[in-house]
């Protein structure tokens, strides 16, 4: 099992396109950091003008913690595409190259193969999130320093003391890993349905985009289905930057994401077990 996992990881990290994801994460992060370095104070000034009418806020508001939050807010929408690039290719890519049938001649059950593909996609996701944490958090702290973090919500101004911030980021990155694992399991399921990798990757992104729009639309028609969409719960990481932290809501989001992940994985195993492999 470990040997097969090693082989899967070798296949993932041998491909140059795997590193494109890491490059894209770094590029977007550095662009936002550059924008914040040059124009961040204007952005903050605009954002807090309502507060500034009544209160004077002194100190380094544009610190690494706030910049990281802005980066995550912008970037975690795009990470699903990068996860789908690998997970969507894992079964369909093999089928496309004609290696799936050969692979299944080995003494390994189909469910086990699906699980190995899932674990390798999960490990890739974890590495991508760790990379995001390094370039976003570490470099932002390096460039902008640390300090108390402000969280500007549409109807609330939240301030978190600097000693209380870092653990929230670790929790948020942990939550983001869970959310991206759900995407990986969705892409893997779609990958089992297809014989070429483009279809599952585009389908995953299509589903994510459509459901994200539904999750964000303030229309009563969709208010009943919103709590059941995984995209509604993918932004649960933001809850760690609220005060008080809505643990119940975060826990509920975690359960929904775990349920979707298990559901997608079970469907993949069920379907792949019965699939007629022709390539």
């Amino acid at each position, binding site marked *: 099992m470990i040997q097969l996992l090693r082989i899967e990881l070798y296949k993932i990290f041998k491909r140059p396109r795997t590193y494109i994801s890491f490059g894209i994460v770094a590029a977007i992060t550095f662009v936002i950091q550059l924008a914040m370095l040059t124009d961040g104070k204007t952005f903050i000034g605009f954002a807090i003008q309502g507060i500034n009418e009544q209160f004077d806020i002194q100190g380094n508001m544009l610190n690494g913690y706030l910049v990281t939050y*802005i980066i995550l807010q912008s970037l975690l929408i795009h990470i699903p595409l990068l996860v789908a690039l690998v997970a969507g290719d894992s079964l369909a890519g093999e089928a496309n190259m004609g290696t799936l049938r050969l692979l299944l001649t080995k003494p390994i059950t189909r469910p086990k193969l699906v699980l190995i593909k899932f674990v390798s996609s999960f490990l890739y996701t974890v590495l991508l999130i760790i990379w995001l944490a390094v370039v976003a958090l570490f470099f932002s702290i390096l460039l902008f320093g640390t300090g108390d973090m402000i969280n500007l919500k549409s109807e609330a101004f939240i301030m978190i003391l600097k000693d209380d911030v870092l653990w929230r980021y670790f929790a948020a990155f942990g939550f983001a890993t869970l959310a991206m694992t759900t995407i990986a399991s969705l892409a893997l399921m779609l990958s089992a349905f297809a014989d070429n990798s483009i279809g599952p990757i585009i389908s995953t992104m299509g589903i994510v985009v459509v459901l994200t729009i539904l999750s964000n639309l303030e229309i009563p028609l969709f208010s009943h289905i919103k709590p059941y969409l995984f995209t509604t719960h993918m932004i649960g990481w933001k809850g760690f930057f609220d005060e008080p932290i809505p643990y119940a809501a975060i826990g509920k989001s975690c359960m929904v994401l775990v349920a979707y992940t298990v559901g997608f994985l079970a469907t993949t195993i069920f379907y792949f077990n019965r699939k007629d492999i022709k390539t």
Partner: protein
Amino acid sequence: MMKRLVLLAGIFCLLATSVWAIEANELFNTMRTKVLSVKDYTADVKMKIDVTYMRIPQLKGTLYFKSPDKMRLERHGGLSIFPKKNINLTLSNLIPTGQVAVLDLGPTTRNGKKLRVLKVIPEDEQGNIVLTKIWIDETNLLAVRTETTTRNDGTVIMDLEFGNYIPFGLPDKVTIFMDVKDYKLPKGVAMDYNDDHINDTKPKDGKGTKGTIQIQYLKYTINTGLKDDIFKGKKGEE
């Protein structure tokens, strides 16, 4: 005979009113002189801001004050939040300066303590303070409560509790009640989380509301001749 009695009573009332007015003026001026005798101080403080739309933990830091209106909270790299300068957090800024008219509203009891209530109206019509009501502890010459109506910032009520620094008229604890306006940030800039209905903080009527700021003064260092440089924003600060 009757006419003389009425005349005497009238003269007595007039004299009594003017004597009270002088007493009230003296009381206010003595109290103001005591408050203004503190030219500067440095104090270790704990500050709690309780405004409907603000969720801020208790802030600890060092508060620098220099008469008449310079104030700075140093939080060793952290953020400090103050109401705008015209609603300063010091008593000296909520007591009118210059020529004033003082009206004696008589004695009252508050928290078991006998107090005298004065209404002070500044003669300067351009200033931010329209009128101030002051509850004075005559024994210690301390203002224990002020209610200041400002031209631009609504009404500011300040409750003061004294302990170790009575000779300087400096409080151990100050609670400020002030009017605050609504706060709303465009969705495009906001960092919202979809489960916000759980923590809905918006006042239901959509109008402005009251805010409270509580400052606990732990230790004062008084009249050390603080330099103006302390009150200038440091590099990188907003």
